[in-house]
């Protein structure tokens, strides 16, 4: 066998770039002189390069798994929106974002929401800067006491700055509370039950499910959130064996899951992991509340949510 005449280890070292400098040059000279060695090397090339390609593919699979973590609902959009609002995109990319906003209403709403947040940050930064300026003014005030010159008193300006600071702080806090507090979120996303008539005539066996469902909603509307959470939770436990048609079962399940999540959100401390539950619902294709869950998840991941709560 010709392959036995040649040293595989040397061939491997050459093909895997482990050979350098004079050793590599000498080996290449030998290859030039020996047709058989060249052929042998070429026979091993697809194997060793293929091994590397296979390893690359394994790495690519890992990369895809890491990427999935980034592709949590809305995460990619958040980054893009941030770049857009910060003016970091080129004209082309900026125009494509604007085109998408025209076509995709939900995306446009997202951009608008983040714009508010962005402006809130700007206001907070301005507030901090004003605070610094007040400090500088104070220092200057101390310096002026050394000078006999007549100056207008500083206190009206300090008072005005303090008032502005106070108002800015108040506005920012109001903005957070109005958009990111648990109460505001629950109010935005709460879905009251459909009018009984819409669900059609129910057989007597379905009456119990409907009553439990209505009762849970009553508790929710009375803002008895822990009790509403329990009521939706119990209903979800009963649904698999309830004597109702599949359409109704799906309706009750999806609505109860969503309202249970909202009730948990309004309960302190929440009885479940809110992000996991929102993520679970957001991942169910066809779930009536999948779009809302995706948006809610982004809100829960926002630092503003933590600040407001």
């Amino acid at each position, binding site marked *: 066998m010709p392959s036995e005449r040649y040293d595989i280890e040397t061939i491997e070292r050459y093909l895997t770039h482990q050979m350098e400098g004079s050793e590599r040059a000498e080996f290449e000279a030998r290859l030039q002189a020996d047709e058989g060695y060249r052929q042998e090397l070429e026979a091993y090339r*697809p194997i060793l390069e293929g091994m590397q390609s296979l390893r690359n593919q394994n790495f690519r699979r890992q990369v895809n798994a890491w990427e999935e973590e980034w592709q949590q609902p809305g995460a990619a959009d958040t980054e893009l929106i941030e770049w857009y609002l910060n003016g970091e995109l080129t004209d082309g990319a900026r125009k494509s974002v604007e085109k998408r906003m025209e076509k995709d209403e939900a995306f446009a709403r997202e951009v608008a929401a983040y714009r508010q947040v962005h402006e809130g940050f700007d206001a907070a930064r301005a507030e901090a800067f004003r605070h610094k300026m007040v400090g500088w003014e104070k220092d200057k005030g101390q310096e002026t006491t050394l000078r006999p010159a007549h100056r207008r008193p500083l206190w009206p300006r300090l008072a005005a700055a303090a008032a502005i600071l106070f108002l800015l702080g108040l506005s920012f806090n109001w903005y957070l509370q109005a958009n990111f507090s648990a109460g505001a979120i629950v109010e935005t996303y709460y879905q009251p039950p459909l009018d009984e008539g819409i669900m059609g005539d129910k057989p007597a066996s379905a009456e119990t499910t409907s009553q439990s469902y209505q009762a849970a909603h009553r508790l929710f509307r009375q803002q008895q959130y822990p009790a509403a959470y329990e009521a939706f939770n119990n209903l979800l436990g009963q649904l698999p064996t309830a004597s109702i048609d599949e359409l109704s079962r799906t309706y009750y399940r999806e609505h109860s899951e969503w309202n249970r999540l909202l009730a948990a959100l309004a309960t302190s401390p929440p009885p479940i992991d809110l992000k996991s539950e929102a993520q679970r619902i957001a991942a169910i294709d066809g779930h009536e509340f999948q779009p809302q869950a995706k948006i809610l998840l982004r809100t829960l991941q926002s630092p503003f949510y933590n600040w407001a709560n």
Partner: protein
Amino acid sequence: MSKYPDDDRKLSQLATDDSQAWKELYDELRSPFRLFIMKYGAMGPEAALELYQDAMVVLYRNIISGKLQPPLASALKTYLFGIGKILLKKRNEGTGNWDDDIPDLPVAPEVESRQDEAARAELVRQLLDKVGESCRQILELAYLRGFVMEAIAEELGLPSAGAARKRKHDCLKKMRDLL
């Protein structure tokens, strides 16, 4: 004296195929790379992401194969951006107005298309299916998981690193004969 001691340390860790270190690098450079490519490559966010993953695979290959070694001539981030730049140039894309901070790489990475990569990998996958379980095991440890001979000997209960090396070469020859 190294110009990038932190990156050199990181590079040494990446060279051991430490999955956690690779994931951290992936997460760290994902946003800056995409923004950079969107800016200079005039690409959309999705295309920039695809390019990022291709560049990451090229970086992986260069580090694992030992082509890129400390001390680094540029920061890892710059090197990765340079790979992105080369990938775009090879595809005749990009604005051509590259930032001066991203020089052409001192050692240009070999760039392989996904199709070529898939074809080469498929050939080896087929051969691995034919060489028998014991050969498959040792070849996978050596070439796909980057085990050194001592570790292979320990993993497979072989008497020494030399015995593992001999077995590996016998298996490699078996593959070559199958071709």
